[in-house]
């Protein structure tokens, strides 16, 4: 697990910190960014093992980043987990149709988040 890098794109500081702590406790290397444009730049640069993408972000939304990732040969196979508000079913469906691996709804449980990340990585490794 040591060489598995997860990029967390989330504009809210407290959520970013909580996710980072949880995933680092699980043994992943975590890189965080605050906006969509920075997320896209960093993903292209470091090619993380998995991306956790908040939908509502400044500069570029999660959907825009996801779309750009899926159109790029170099990044289209990186699994993406979307982080969205619970009530927004349309967002979830749109994200899954665009190629997201899974989604996490806010409010979230850090344990569940870690389990979903693990599952997504396992699924990605097998396929």
């Amino acid at each position, binding site marked *: 697990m040591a060489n598995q890098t997860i990029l967390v794109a989330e504009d809210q*500081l407290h959520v970013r910190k909580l996710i980072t702590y949880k995933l680092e406790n699980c043994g992943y290397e975590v890189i965080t960014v605050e906006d969509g444009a920075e997320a896209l730049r960093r993903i292209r640069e470091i090619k993380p093992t998995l991306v956790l993408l908040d939908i509502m972000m400044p500069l570029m939304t999660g959907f825009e980043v996801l779309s750009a990732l899926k159109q790029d040969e170099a990044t289209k196979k990186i699994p993406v987990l979307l982080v969205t508000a619970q009530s927004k079913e349309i967002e979830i469906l749109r994200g899954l149709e665009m190629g997201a691996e899974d989604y996490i709804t806010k*409010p979230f449980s850090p344990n569940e988040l870690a389990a979903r990340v693990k599952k997504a990585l396992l699924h990605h490794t097998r396929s």
Partner: protein
Amino acid sequence: MDIKLLIFIALAIGATFFAVVASLGLVIHKAIHAQTIRKRQHLYSFYSDLIAELLLQNVLPLSPDARTSAIFNQYEIIIQPIKNRLREMSQLKCKIEREILRSVLIDFAKDVRGEISDRLVYFFYSFGFVDEQIKLLSDRRWWIRAQAARDAGLLKARRAITAITACLEDVHPDVRLQSMVSLIRLVGVEAFKTIFRVSKELSLWTAVELSTVIKEYKETTIPYLIEGLQNDSQSVVLFCIEMLAEIGFISAVEPLRKIVENCQDVTIRMKAIEALGRLGDGRAETILLSNLDHAHSEVRLKSMEALERVGAYSAIPILIERMKQNGGNEKIFSARAIASTGKSGVEELNALAQNNKFLLRAVVEQVLEEYQFRVEQV
């Protein structure tokens, strides 16, 4: 030297001095403000870090016979370092840091659930923020009261329930709205009972917000909405009727029927008639037919519209009579109600199309065209 020139030079120096001092003052003020923001951001980041770590810190597993309070003791140990830190500070610094700590806890409460959410609730109580929130609920500034009501709900501060319930009667609609939402968070669906009993006036914005919450709970809110029909406030009754029609549950038909039967308020009566139409239940037919004779023309039109939605076959003879006797609008609405019953209604309208009265014929032709268009659409 000329005295006028001297005065001019003195004034110019004075003005320059004033401008320089004012500019300097502004720059200093801006710099202090920027520094305060930076400090606050730094503190927010510090506490976010700390709280995130404490929320994820493992607690010792409890033995099966351990008291419930044993877990609280562990939570208390977790937050001791923060309490010690705050204790060592000056009063002013402590006040600032507590304020930031509170906002960090509230932000976390919005985004997490599960065991760590319980931890947050304990932290909130233990730092004394719940009592502070209760005090803020009676602040003289409405926005402070509204925020306190919202935060108390987010942090599941059950101790604040009484104070929040009192805020349901606040003079400001935003305070009332936030209190409603918080009460629902704290008590669940049963909160609607208190909300509809206590509420005296629902603003349009409150109604919109509240309807979103009701749609989440759906049919579990029906008993409370039915109870709300007894409220003295017209806006509350209208809201309850609208929600009953929106949720569309069959048990709403009977209470709505009673409203139409007994309520003297024309606006409420019309709303209830409209709701019965939206529910489309045949049991409403008799009461809708009896309202075709109501003195108020809008009530008669609403009843015809509702009958159109119900599709009442037995109403055809009465509706034909209305078409023959009443004015233009009632003719159209009656004809639409007749057409909605299907084949037999359309046959009756075709027969009326031979009538020698021009207006009646024109109405029938228009409605038959509409009906044909709808059939083709389907």
